[in-house]
């Protein structure tokens, strides 16, 4: 072995940083879309009418059972050729991630709403609030502290999953890593660097951000419910 040359990493820091930025950017944008789309799905899922409820249920089951790699290739190579739709790699990647995670997000919303004690609905009704008011003023404020920590965990999963968007040509961290490692013929140094960057981001989110969110909201939650 010719010894490791990690200094080569520092010569490429600008490209690596750019790739990291793109990777995180794709994840953040996808999560924002998933948060909105998931809300629509859960509203359907909890609707009174079966013809809204059933499609939403099928949507959730279907996309929770779908692997990102399969879906992203289907979307980018399969769907585009049939519909003539011109999706760029970015749009395809964000759409795939957002659709898959909106199904998980819908379940996060639902379990958050279910965590609010049943008596809260009844009490709201007893004092003469409308269903809309019950949700807006009673249920949702109590559900949010439950939803936010779970949504954070979901975002961490999404970020990890999104590392593969390079397969359809998004110039994210892994794609940049592949290119640099081929160019310099230093795969160990570059792939290790990419793994370390991901580990740092994910551990920061799960060990620092998520823990803080949970601590803050658990206290808040106890105050609100009891």
């Amino acid at each position: 072995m010719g010894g490791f040359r990690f200094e080569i990493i520092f010569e490429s820091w600008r490209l690596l940083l750019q790739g990291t930025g793109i990777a995180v950017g794709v994840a953040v944008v996808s999560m924002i879309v998933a948060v909105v789309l998931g809300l629509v799905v859960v509203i359907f899922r909890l609707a009174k009418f079966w013809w809204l409820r059933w499609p939403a249920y099928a949507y959730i089951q279907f996309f929770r059972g779908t692997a990102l790699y399969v879906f992203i290739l289907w979307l980018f190579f399969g769907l585009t050729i049939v519909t003539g739709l011109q999706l760029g790699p970015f749009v395809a990647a964000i759409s795939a991630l957002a659709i898959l995670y909106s199904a998980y997000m819908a379940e996060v919303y639902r379990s958050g709403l279910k965590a609010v004690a049943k008596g809260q609905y009844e009490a709201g009704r007893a004092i003469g609030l409308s269903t809309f008011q019950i949700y807006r003023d009673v249920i949702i404020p109590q559900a949010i502290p439950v939803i936010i920590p779970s949504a954070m965990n979901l975002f961490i999963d999404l970020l990890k999953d999104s590392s593969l968007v390079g397969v359809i040509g998004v110039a994210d961290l892994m794609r940049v890593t592949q290119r640099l490692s081929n160019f310099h013929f230093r795969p160990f140094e570059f792939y290790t660097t990419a793994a370390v960057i991901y580990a740092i981001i994910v551990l920061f989110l799960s060990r620092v951000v998520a823990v803080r969110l949970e601590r803050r909201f658990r206290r808040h939650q106890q105050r609100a419910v009891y």
Partner: protein
Amino acid sequence: MNYDFQWYRITRNLEPMFEGLLVTYEVTVLAMAIALILGLILALMRLSNSRWLSGIAQVYIELGRAMPLYVFLLWIYFGLAFALNIVFQPMEAGVLALGLLTAAYMAEIYRSGILAVDRGQFEAARALGLTPASIYRDVVLPQAFRIILPSAGNQFVGAFKGATIVAVIGVADLMYFAREASLEFFKPFEFYTSAGVLLIASTIAFSGLVAVMERRMRGGETG
């Protein structure tokens, strides 16, 4: 919308597609076997009184759960192989990457299962004069296995979904075949759709099985 659908390409290629699906199952089962064994070892290390063993296990579990599968897969296949000067078969690298990462998740599942066993069981076993090894082997683990069965089942489903990406390093699984066939016949929609249907049907079937298992076990507990 004047795409010329050629579904007969699929019906003519059913055999290699199912062979590919079988490879995806194979990767999942082998990786899961690694995860079940290594995960148990990690969980026992994590719960041991030795600060060293516990610390090593904790670092492994934390890092393993933080690492994206795709990143780890490429790291093993391209990075580690180069550094150690060995050549992995794609299949070996795929199973290893999926197995080593799933082991970290399995360790946490085992741990929560062991901790969920009633403390009184430990104390009763100790009072009977069983050795620590016997306490785990004969009393605690059999009960823990029952408790973790549904979570382990869900982990299996997760591993199966993860296994679909091994095609990126050239494992000749279903997604690999779909890609090759799409290029050959220039019919990506048909091949990716069919591959997707087979894989999603598998996941939904496995998830259903886990749900049945879960319900039956819950019924058993109350009965």
